[in-house]
C-alpha cells in the first residue's frame, strides 16, 4: 500500500548563509495493507520528516513515495489533494484547525469532503468524540482553547473519522492518560483489522510492541548518524 523507494532530502536555508542540512539519504520501506510499522530513532533523526514527506507536506528531493499508485514525490498538487481526501490520513502531533469551527465540524470534515450527508457525518463524529471522552458540552466549541490532551483526542477523532486505506500517526498517545491511551490503541487495532496500512511514531515501547509488526530505525537513513 505504501512504498518508499530510495528517498532523500536536505534543507537549504538560503537566508541563513545558504546552510545545507541533509536529513535523509536513500530511505526505503514497504508497508502492506493491514500492516503497522513503527518509525524509531533518536529525536531529530527524521521520523516526523519522513512522515511529512509521505503526506506531501515536505518535498522529496529524490526517490519515489508510492501510496496506492500515486507517487507523492512527483505527483501534481491536485493528485495529492485527492489522495489526502480519500486515501491517506494523517494525525499530526499538533492539532491545527481553522478557528471558529466547532469540534463537531472539525471531526466531521473528512466525511463531509468525501460526500457524506451532514447529519450522518455529524453522528459518526459524535460517536468518536464520545468514545474518546470529550465531554458533550465541548462539542459545539472550537478546540482552540482545549487542553493539550483534549486537542490531541480531537485530532485523533478527525484522523479516524474517514476509513482511509493508509494512515500516518505521529505520537498519537503522547498527551493521553491511560484510559484514553487504551482507547486509541484499540482504534488503531481496529483500523489494522480493516486492512489499513499504518506508519506510526510511538515513543511508548509497549504501544509499539502491541500494535506494530515491525520497527524501522530511521537513523540508518540519517546522513552523519548512520552507523
Amino acid at each position: 500500500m505504501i512504498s518508499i523507494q530510495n528517498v532523500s532530502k536536505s534543507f537549504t536555508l538560503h537566508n541563513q548563509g545558504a546552510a545545507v542540512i541533509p536529513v535523509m539519504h536513500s530511505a526505503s520501506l514497504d508497508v502492506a495493507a493491514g500492516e503497522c510499522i513503527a518509525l524509531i530513532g533518536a529525536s531529530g533523526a527524521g521520523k516526523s520528516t519522513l512522515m511529512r514527506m509521505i503526506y506531501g507536506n515536505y518535498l522529496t528531493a529524490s526517490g519515489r513515495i508510492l501510496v496506492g499508485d500515486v507517487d507523492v514525490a512527483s505527483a501534481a498538487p491536485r493528485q495529492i489533494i485527492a489522495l489526502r481526501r480519500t486515501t491517506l490520513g494523517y494525525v499530526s502531533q499538533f492539532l491545527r484547525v481553522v478557528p471558529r469551527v466547532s469540534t463537531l465540524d472539525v471531526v466531521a470534515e473528512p466525511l463531509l469532503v468525501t460526500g457524506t450527508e451532514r447529519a450522518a457525518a455529524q453522528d459518526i463524529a459524535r460517536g468518536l468524540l464520545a468514545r474518546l471522552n470529550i465531554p458533550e458540552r465541548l462539542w459545539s466549541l472550537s478546540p482552540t482553547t482545549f487542553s493539550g490532551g483534549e486537542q490531541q483526542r480531537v485530532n485523533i477523532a478527525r484522523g479516524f473519522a474517514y476509513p482511509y486505506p493508509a494512515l500516518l500517526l505521529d505520537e498519537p498517545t503522547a498527551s493521553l492518560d491511560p484510559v484514553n491511551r487504551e482507547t486509541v490503541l484499540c482504534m488503531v487495532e481496529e483500523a489494522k483489522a480493516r486492512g489499513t496500512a499504518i506508519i506510526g511514531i510511538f515513543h511508548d515501547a509497549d504501544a509499539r510492541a502491541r500494535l506494530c509488526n515491525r520497527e524501522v530505525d530511521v537513523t540508518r537513513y540519517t546522513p552523519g548518524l548512520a552507523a
Partner: protein
Amino acid sequence: MTPLLQVENIAKFYGPRIGCTDVSFDLYPGEVMGIVGESGSGKSTLLNTLAGHLTPDRGAVRFDTRADGQHDGGLRDTVTMSEPERRMLSRTDWAFVHQHARDGLRMNVSAGGNVGERLMAVNARHYGQIRDTAIDWLGRVEIAADRIDDRPTAFSGGMQQRLQIARNLVTGPRLVFMDEPTGGLDVSVQARLLDLLRGLVREMGLSAIIVTHDLAVVRLLADRLMVMKDGRVVESGLTDQVLDDPQHAYTQLLVSSVLQV
C-alpha cells in the same frame, strides 16, 4: 479531466517594465489557488490579466466554457475572445471580488438592486423572484434581510465586502477572482469574511484565484499557492508544502517574516 482554467505563458509588460511574465498553471474545478507576493510582485497585474481587465502581451488564458460537443471540454482562449463574449463571461461564469467594495458595487443602488443586477443582466424579469433571490443571498452572506433597500453607503466595510460577494455569486459562477478580499478590514471582520468565503467556496464547489499578501489568508483558503517576486513565479505547489517546506530563498524569507501572535 479538463482543467477549468489553463494559463499558458502569460506576460504583461508596461513598456520595458515587467508586470508579470512566464506564468503558466492549470486550475481544476473546486481548487483554490493563492497568489502571494509583496507590493510590486506582479500579483495584481496577473490577476487582472487573467480576469480580462488587462490584455496580456503574450500567452493564453483558456477557460472551459463547456460548449457542447467539443472534445477538449470547451476550452476557449479568453484573450482572443470577442469583447461581448468576455463581458458575458464575467457576468455569469466568472466573478471578481475587488479589494475595495466601492469598485465592485454600485454605491447609489440599493443592496437588493446590487445583488439583482447580474440576474437582470441575464434577463430575469420577475421582480418578486429577483427580490426573493436577493434576500436569500443577503442571508447567506449574513446581512439582515431588512437592509435590502439600504444603499451600500450605509453599510460598514465588512458588510460592503459581503454584499460584493453576494452580488458576484448570485449567478453561480464557476470561477472567482479575489483581489485582497480582506485587505483593510478589522481582524475580527476579516475572520468572519474568511469563514464565509471558505464555506461558500466549499458549498458551491467554486474554483478561486486569490491574490493576497497575507500568508495566513492563503493557509486558510487556498489549496495551492504561487509565490511571486518581481513579476515572476518563484515557487508553487501545495499551500501547506510551500509554507512548511519553502524551497526558494524569497519564500523562506516571507515565511520567516510572518509575525506570530
